């Protein structure tokens, strides 16, 4: 064991695990410190005397939403590490109705939108958008993008999903109107997280999304706009319908 590493006895699994002080652990600690600090401050605020009912209710909603974000991040990381453990470089794929998945994600994140004074818009599409992917991983990628867009978009703006077909792939984009990261920022976020180093404050999610996309033989990318960005995931389109 190296200096600084430590071991944890997991009584449920009946084994001892060595925890190395790796960049992944540092990245996770850094990423979780922000929501945990906010939850703590919101709780302290809510515990003050003299708050109105509205202030109290708003604080509780924000505590819930911030906790949800942190739990999602931990869940995604747990998924990444469980996949690494089992050496699943790729995952079993199946046809996924991407349009309906976008609706599901928008529905799931609606409370977060309301709490942030944002709207979320899903595209009305003609015909099926069926991809070959892993539904759960794709859902996590889209939630990740939309969650970030909701959190960092300008006030009262709209977060928009988009769907398109390109070179045998289906591309799902999430457009925000937030600050524009430079190419080097994005590159640094993706390259350094989650597996190789310390990310920017919102970089871990992008790294996880890229990892999940690769597991589905897909890829991620981003497009800069004058007033925001689109983050997208591109995965193979299903050929099933064309065979009918």
């Amino acid at each position, binding site marked *: 064991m190296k200096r600084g590493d430590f071991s944890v006895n997991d009584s449920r699994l009946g084994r001892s695990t060595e925890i190395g002080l790796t960049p992944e652990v540092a990245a996770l600690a850094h990423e979780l410190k922000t929501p945990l600090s*906010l939850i703590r*401050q*919101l709780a302290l*605020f809510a515990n003050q005397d003299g708050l109105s009912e509205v202030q109290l209710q708003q604080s509780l909603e924000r505590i819930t939403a*911030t906790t949800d974000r942190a739990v999602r991040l931990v869940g995604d990381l747990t998924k990444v590490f469980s996949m690494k453990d089992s050496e699943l470089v790729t995952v079993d794929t199946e046809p996924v109705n991407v349009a309906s998945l976008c609706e599901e994600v928008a529905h799931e994140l609606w409370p977060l939108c309301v709490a942030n004074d944002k709207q979320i818009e899903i595209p009305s599409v003609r015909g099926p958008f069926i991809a070959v992917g892993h539904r759960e991983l794709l859902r996590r990628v889209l939630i990740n993008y939309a969650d970030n867009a909701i959190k960092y978009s300008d*006030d009262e703006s709209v977060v928009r999903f988009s769907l398109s077909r390109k070179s045998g792939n289906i591309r799902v984009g999430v457009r925000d109107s937030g*600050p524009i990261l430079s190419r080097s920022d994005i590159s640094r976020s993706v390259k350094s997280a989650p597996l190789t180093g310390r990310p*920017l404050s*919102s970089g871990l999610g992008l790294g996880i999304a890229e990892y999940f996309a690769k597991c589905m033989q897909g890829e991620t990318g981003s497009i800069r706009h004058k007033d925001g960005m689109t983050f997208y995931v591109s995965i193979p389109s299903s050929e099933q319908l064309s065979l009918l």
Partner: protein
Amino acid sequence: MSIIKVLLLEDDRWQADLYESQLKSEGYQVQVASSPHDAVMMMDDFSPSVVIADVLLKGNTVFPFLHELASYEDTWNVPVILITTEAEMISGTNLTQYGVVRVLDKSTMGVDDIITATRRVLNEG
């Protein structure tokens, strides 16, 4: 008694709401900037007595903004309070050249700490 103006640079709206609410309840006049660019724009018109700023901002840090403040005759001496989850990482750094007089740790600070720090900074000034 004149109203004391506080410029708050914080990109997390919920965090900004908390600080703004606390500062306003103590009678301070507060303007919130969500980016260094907005903060620079506000400096001239608002002329704050103190700046309270987060360190890690969206796609940037606070330091280009602080450097900008330090570059101008009318802003170099505006005291700055940093408020950050990275307090332990920057606590040993010499930030006085940027006008930083206090560093508050978001992960341990109490509800009144921002008020106490602001008062002290203004009294010391």
